């Protein structure tokens, strides 16, 4: 399969797609280093080099590829878009109109995507305002670094320009992601998160080597490889539900008569639940930021104590619970047993021993809800590894093989490689026919 990479570049069509995706990734990284107007680039650099303890923003900073702390044009990253799509997807369960739109098919989905975009803009305005307000107080964004990150005399107009720039940056990221999905390879949004995490990877790994020496460094690399293998192992595990197609004549041709299977993955939801859970846990931290600093209300200190610091058991339990919830939730919205069983019935397929129609849908639901439990527990366990390792090694929060980061990296890598592979097979197949 390694030769597939070389072959992928020899296929003109696929080469174009890969190069397109790489170009977009380059644009994305470029936007992550360009500072927003009004930000003192020198002050930020000083603060970053002097101080590695970024406290509560480390995970968000990881997701934005270091752009958040640099206060760059793309500082907010894809986070607002992710949060918006969680909210919209949750609302499809609550609001009847959204549910109707979802059932409407393609045009309804397009409308929902449109709502998600509007909500993203709203969230981006909120988050950029919060971020800028925080950065204007010296020593808040970087604890112990009292440089003026934002020029103090820019005035209200300057701040409006900054908010507009960051919001515009977020919408550009949204567009870039959709471009990758349409014309490149893989899923744009996850590929961009992947890029962001990959950007912080070498630095934080090297930081461990410098702080702790070769021993721990090698242990961590080895542990990382084991985790990669484990993630691949579970991602590839399938429960295959046999499907038999009845033979039938349409005109003078015979169709069907074949037997296939429906692959139900143990982890049908992929990495989405982890992304959802961690971006949802960011919201309380954001709320604390908006509360007053000097005289914080009771709920703010409570959140600060239990839900912001990653090493507290309550935080871990919440994180784990959210991941399990979102795994079931995401499986429920992406895999519709009724639809699958209807499709099977339409084309004359059936599961041996189970009647077509409602019993089939119920059987699929039965298997899916049971097979998802180990999948959900696995996702939660892998994501907790960084938090537990944090306690064991006293390593910093940016522990690069941290579950969330590695799950996203491996999951997206696997998905993208598989997509390239399948497109390659398509090409070669066509090539034979011509």
């Amino acid at each position: 399969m390694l030769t597939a990479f070389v072959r992928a570049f020899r296929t003109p069509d696929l080469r174009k797609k890969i190069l397109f995706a790489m170009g977009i990734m380059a644009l994305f990284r470029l936007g992550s280093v360009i500072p927003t107007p009004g930000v003192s680039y020198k002050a930020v650099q000083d603060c970053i080099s002097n101080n590695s303890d970024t406290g509560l923003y480390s995970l968000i900073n990881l997701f934005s590829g270091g752009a958040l702390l640099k206060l760059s044009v793309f500082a907010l990253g894809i986070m607002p878009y992710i949060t918006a799509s969680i909210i919209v997807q949750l609302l499809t369960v609550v609001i009847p109109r959204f549910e109707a739109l979802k059932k409407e098919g393609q045009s309804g989905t397009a409308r929902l995507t449109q709502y998600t975009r509007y909500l993203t803009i709203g969230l981006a305005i909120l988050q950029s305002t919060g971020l800028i307000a925080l950065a204007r107080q010296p020593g808040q964004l970087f604890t112990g670094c009292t440089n003026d990150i934002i020029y103090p005399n820019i005035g209200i107009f300057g701040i409006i320009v900054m908010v507009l720039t960051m919001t515009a940056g977020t919408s550009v990221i949204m567009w870039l992601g959709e471009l990758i999905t349409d014309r490149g390879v893989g899923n744009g949004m996850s590929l961009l998160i992947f890029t962001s995490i990959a950007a912080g990877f070498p630095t934080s790994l090297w930081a461990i080597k410098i702080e702790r020496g070769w021993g721990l460094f090698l242990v961590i690399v080895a542990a990382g490889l084991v985790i990669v293998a484990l993630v691949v192992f579970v991602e590839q595990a399938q429960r295959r539900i046999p499907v038999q197609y009845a033979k039938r004549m349409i005109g003078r041709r015979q169709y069907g008569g074949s037997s296939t299977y429906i692959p139900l993955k143990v982890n049908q939801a992929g990495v989405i639940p982890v992304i959802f859970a961690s971006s949802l846990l960011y919201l309380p931290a954001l709320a604390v930021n908006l509360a007053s600093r000097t005289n914080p209300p009771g709920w703010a200190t409570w959140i600060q104590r239990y839900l912001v610091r990653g090493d507290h058991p309550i935080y871990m339990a919440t994180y784990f619970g959210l991941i399990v919830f979102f795994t079931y939730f995401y499986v429920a919205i992406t895999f519709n047993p009724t639809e699958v069983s209807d499709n099977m019935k339409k084309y004359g397929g059936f599961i041996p021993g189970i009647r077509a129609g409602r019993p089939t849908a119920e059987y699929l639901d039965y298997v899916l809800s049971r097979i998802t439990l180990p999948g959900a527990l696995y996702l939660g366990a892998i994501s907790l590894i960084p938090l537990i390792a944090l306690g064991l090694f006293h390593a910093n929060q940016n522990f690069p093989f941290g579950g969330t980061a590695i799950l996203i990296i491996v999951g997206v890598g696997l998905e993208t490689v598989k997509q390239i592979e399948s497109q390659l097979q398509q090409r070669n197949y066509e090539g034979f026919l011509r």
Partner: protein
Amino acid sequence: MTETRGSTAATPERGRPAAKKPLPARISLFYRQVMAELRKVIWPTRKELVTYTTVVIAFVLVVIAYVTGLDFAFSKAILAIFG
């Protein structure tokens, strides 16, 4: 084939039995059903696992190298402009 939810239902897809069992019994039933399904899962073979792991690691390393290269070049450029 699969364990049933209640003694009255012949197959699991007949729906819930009329009378609910106590919670611990239902949890242990669910657990056994999960285990039964897990046994039917096709796990990847050793060869498959090795191939996929190698390919994913190679892919990830290539992307990390690419992104690191980009970042290095861009931060040099930005430093030259703003620094």
